[in-house]
Each structure stands twice: as structure tokens, then as C-alpha cells.
């Protein structure tokens, strides 16, 4: 079974590039060049150097002893929360900004939901001196004020997306419209493993450093680079794809992707895409998405803005359909509890996105010997208000 992209841009039944002709030249330019650029030795040298000295990689693989004791397994946390800007998102934006430079682009656009990808994009634009425009839903701008301020201080122009539901999916639409209207000098840094081919593959490659490091660190710490389980949360799915990447072809490693159930998968306020969705096309690729019988995209809900997306990347849809990875979901409530638990046991306040992955440990049964890696994709600073309100702290 091939779990990676084929020469036509598909992962099994999913993927492709469902884009209007106006976007074809941009996407085609990227498709023809991305692998050559990424595989170039000079590019790799620069990319690796920035990941090391600017982002702070490798991120630690931390054996969480008190959490391990509670769950009766060896729980390792891959500490993406310790990266510069506080999440895994920067791995991708560093890669894409270098690639944009090689393509001679002068202007960068991006979409953002909670603002983490927007901040990571604004950061690399400041670093390299490129113009930066971030699209963000009007609703998200209001509820993520600190990240909006960070983007502005970093020199980005933040444009409010006022169409549709005024959240992440609409910010993505607006960014695509910007790209249509600025086809020559602009590069669109998509923040997840979604969008038309080659984006899902390109973003997965940049994020694959997560599992590349994890294998080495596991070997050092346990004598084997093969864990029993790998867990990661999924919105669009970029931290999960980075966390799974180098384990995908080793079928002995069980992969578990955790979606946001919101207020419950049947509550009408959920983002559990594989449970509620059907096959279709969203944002340029064929995947699984939440939609009406008529094919209109349904607005999702999650307490975590980073998981509040009605689709998943096409590679995830393929891993789901082939059952290579298991897809489960965790409610708002369960994730917040797991966030508080990690804080109390290990002194780490996780992003609510990452807390969804942690919450699934509660539902697993261990015998004491299993090695389990959980991707701690981001830190919880941005979520303090939600935590405080929920727990009355």
C-alpha cells in the first residue's frame, strides 16, 4: 500500500488540484519546482540551520514520568510547544519562506484561524524582509486579540475576512482570492496539509522533521526507534502528518489521530470530520469534509480554534480510508480536563489542540510496557482565557 502522494497528486482516492484556471499557473509553478528546491543541498543546509538556531530544534522528546505512572505506560511528549513562536507551525513557514525566495516571490499571504500560523508566517516574513498579508476571520480577530497584536508588531497586515461564517475556512477563501488577483509576485503559505497538490505533500515534508527527530530520540532513550503508539491531534492535520510521517510505512507502529468532537459528535457543534464528513472537494483537494447533502460546507465547532476546520488533509483521508491510522474524537470538556491534568502532573500548560491528543490516553488500556509518543504540538499561552473561564481559576 502506498500512503504517499503519486505522480498525479493523489493519495489513493484523495488529493488532486481542484482549482480554478486562475490559480493553475501558480500551483503548477510550485508543483514543478518544490521537490527540486527542497532536495537541493544548499536549501537543506539553510533550512536545517534555521530550524536549529532560530526555531530551537531538535525539540526535546520528554518522558513524562508522572503521566506515565498514571496511565501505566511510557508516555513520551514531543515538545513542539518549545519551538520559537510556540507551536509546530514554524517548521512549515521556515520551509515555505525559503522556497518562496527561490521562486523569486516578493509578497507572502497566509490564512490563520487561532493566529498561530499567522504569527509563524509574520515571523518568517520579518526574518527575511518580505511583505506579509494575513487573512483572518472577523470572528477570530475578536477572540484572538493577542495573536493579532503579535502579527501587527511583526509587520504584517492583518485583513479581516468578512465573508461566510467569518472564521478559518473563510480566511482561506480570502487568501485564495488574493492569490487569484496577484498571480505573479505572491506566494501563498498554506498552514496545514490541505489545499491543492503539491501543498499537502510539501507541508508534510517540512513537518516531517518532527518524526525524524522522534525516531532518533526514541532510539537513544529506549534502544528502539519503534514506539507502540503515536498520537496527534488533527484539524487540517499538519502536526499529525509530521508526527506520523516516518512511521507511516512501519505498520507495527499504531497511529492514532484525534479530532475535535466539540460539544459531542452528535450535538451539531463538532469538528469530528471523519465521523461526520463525506468525500468531496474543499479548498482545492478531494478529501473528507463536513457538508450538507447538497455539498455545502458545514460550519464546524471546537473550543480549540486550531481544530475548528470542516475538513482534513487528503493524506489523512487516505490513512483513514485504508485504516492505516485510527481516527477518534475528544470533546471540548475532555480536552480541557486533559490540559489541566498535564499542567498539574508535569508543569506543562498545553495548547487546547494538543490537549485533545493527551485526552485520548484516558481511553486507552496499557499493560505497563508500551512506548507511547504524543505530539505536544503547541503551548497553552494563547488559551489562558479559555482555561481560566472554564475552570473558574
Amino acid at each position, binding site marked *: 500500500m502506498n500512503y504517499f502522494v503519486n505522480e498525479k497528486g493523489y493519495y489513493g482516492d484523495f488529493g488532486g488540484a481542484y482549482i*480554478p484556471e486562475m490559480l493553475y499557473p501558480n500551483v503548477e509553478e510550485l508543483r514543478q519546482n518544490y521537490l527540486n528546491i527542497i532536495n537541493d543541498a544548499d536549501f537543506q543546509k539553510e533550512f536545517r540551520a534555521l530550524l536549529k538556531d532560530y526555531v530551537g530544534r531538535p525539540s526535546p522528546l520528554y518522558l513524562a514520568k508522572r503521566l506515565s505512572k498514571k496511565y501505566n505506560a511510557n508516555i513520551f511528549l514531543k515538545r513542539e510547544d518549545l519551538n520559537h513562536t510556540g507551536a509546530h507551525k514554524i517548521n512549515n513557514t521556515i520551509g515555505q519562506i525559503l522556497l518562496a525566495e527561490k521562486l523569486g516571490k516578493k509578497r507572502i499571504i497566509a490564512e490563520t484561524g487561532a493566529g498561530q500560523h499567522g504569527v509563524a508566517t509574520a515571523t518568517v516574513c520579518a526574518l527575511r524582509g518580505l511583505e506579509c498579508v494575513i487573512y483572518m476571520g472577523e470572528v477570530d480577530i475578536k477572540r484572538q486579540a493577542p495573536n493579532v497584536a503579535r502579527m501587527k508588531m511583526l509587520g504584517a497586515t492583518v485583513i479581516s475576512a468578512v465573508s461566510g461564517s467569518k472564521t478559518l475556512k473563510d480566511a482561506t477563501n480570502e487568501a485564495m*482570492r488574493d492569490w487569484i488577483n496577484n*498571480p505573479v509576485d505572491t506566494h501563498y503559505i498554506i498552514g496545514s496539509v490541505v489545499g491543492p497538490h503539491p501543498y499537502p505533500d510539501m507541508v508534510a515534508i517540512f513537518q516531517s522533521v518532527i518524526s525524524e527527530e522522534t525516531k532518533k530520540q526514541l532510539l537513544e532513550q529506549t534502544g528502539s526507534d519503534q514506539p507502540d503508539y503515536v498520537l496527534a491531534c488533527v484539524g487540517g492535520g499538519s502536526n499529525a502528518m509530521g508526527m506520523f510521517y516516518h512511521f507511516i510505512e512501519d505498520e507495527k507502529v499504531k497511529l492514532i489521530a484525534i479530532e475535535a468532537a466539540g460539544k459531542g459528535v452528535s450535538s451539531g457543534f463538532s469538528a469530528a470530520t471523519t465521523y461526520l464528513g463525506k*468525500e*468531496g472537494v474543499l*479548498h*482545492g483537494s478531494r478529501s473528507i469534509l463536513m457538508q450538507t*447533502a447538497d455539498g455545502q*460546507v458545514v460550519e464546524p465547532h471546537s473550543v480549540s480554534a486550531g481544530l475548528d476546520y470542516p475538513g482534513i488533509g487528503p493524506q489523512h483521508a487516505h490513512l483513514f480510508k485504508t485504516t492505516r491510522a485510527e481516527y477518534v474524537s475528544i470533546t471540548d470538556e475532555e480536552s480541557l480536563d486533559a490540559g489541566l491534568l498535564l499542567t498539574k502532573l508535569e508543569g506543562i500548560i498545553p495548547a487546547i489542540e494538543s490537549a485533545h491528543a493527551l485526552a485520548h490516553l484516558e481511553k486507552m488500556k496499557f499493560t505497563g510496557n508500551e512506548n507511547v509518543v504524543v505530539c505536544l504540538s503547541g503551548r497553552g499561552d494563547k488559551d489562558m482565557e479559555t482555561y481560566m473561564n472554564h475552570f473558574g481559576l
Partner: protein
Amino acid sequence: MNRINQLFKEKKNNILSIYYTAGYPGLGDTIAIAEALQEAGADMLEIGFPYSDPVADGPVIQASSKQSLDSGMDLNLLFEQLKDLRKKVSIPVLLMGYVNPVLQYGVENFCKACVEVGVDGCIVPDLPMYEYEELYKDVFLDNDLCNIFLVTPQTSEERIRKIDALSNGFIYLLSSSATTGKNLDVSDATTTYFSRIAAMELSNPTMIGFGISSKETFDKACKYANGGIIGTAFVKAIAEGNLKESIDGFMKNFR
């Protein structure tokens, strides 16, 4: 013969095609608008079926799509409304919209429903050429439906040739790489692009769209192609007031 091919056989220039969103401004206006447009001199109609995430469209068509969806429009209702289309309208009619609603309806069912109500062709901007060729072409051809492809100033000559070979009906030339509702670029670069396409002597007729809102811009389109397509300006014009009067008033600018 398909009505679209018939039209281009009989009329070589000054062809006026109008786009409007089904179920807008009123949910039940779809057929009334078609009738009024034919009466006022439109040569061809493009009826948009609305989608929640129309990335190729500007604010005006987005808003009309949202209003239509909010009123309850979907493909089942649209085909129901179009049942009497051919009792009232004889000019060619295309459906225009995004690929996901078509996928959910089922491509084959969609094509059959089009034929049953007398629709002659489709414009699905986010259905790529490769997927069309591999998966949909036979269904479209079996049902004698035209599939219309878009060409932009950035489309390479090689790709235009491929599009021409795969097209049936006409080729939709975008005046610029833009979302709908921008003004027609009247610069030399645009003229050069239009002339370049004209010089290619494509086997299909061409229609210029995106940014045509006045007699002047329509005439310019007709200079370089078989005609022009108006969308946003028309949708804007019928937003308020008496529908028939708005349509007649708008069409007087062109006919």
C-alpha cells in the same frame, strides 16, 4: 444540435451572455429572470447554482450565493424550478457553479438532470482539465452537454491548445487573472493578450468575461471575441426594485 453550437453557428459576433445566481434576489425568480433576459435580447444565459465557498468570486456574487442558499436553494430545487425552462426560454442555457455540489449530486445524475430540463452546458471553474478528461468527459459527451473551460492571461499557449482540443461549445476568456466583479483592464497588456488568442485561430468560439459592466467594455470584448459575458454588474442591477424593470433597464445599455 446543442443550442450553444447552434448559436455560434448562426451568430458570429456581438453575442451577449448574462450570468445570474439561481434563487436570487427571490428564491422563485430563477425562471422569470431567464424569460425577461431572453425578451430583452440576451443570446445566452449562465445560471449559477450557489456554493458556500465560492473562491473564484468577488463580494457581489458571493453575497447573492449566500442569500440564495439561506433562502433554501439547492440543486434539487433548482432542477425542479427548471422543469418548465424550455416551455418559456429557447436561447442556450448553461449552469455554472463549483464542483462539490455536483459531486454530491452525482456527476451522471447531474448531467442527466441537465438534459432533462434542457440545459445545454456547464461551467465548473474548479473542475480541473485532468479530472474532466479522466472521469467526466464521456458522461458529458454522452449527454451532449458542453463543458466550458476558462483561459487567463497567464495560461500558456500549449495549455490553451489542449483546452481547445477538449472544449465543446466555446472557450471562456478571462479578461484578467482576477475574481469576479473587477473592472475590465483596458491596458495594452490586455489588448495584446486578446490579440494573441485571436491570432491562435482556435477551433472553438470565444467569449470574454470578468469585468464587463458597460456598453464600452462589452464592445471591446466583441472586438476580440465572439461576444461578452456579464455577471457581477447584472447581479448588482437586480438586487433591488421591480425585477422586470431592473432587467429591462440594464439590458437597454447593451441592446
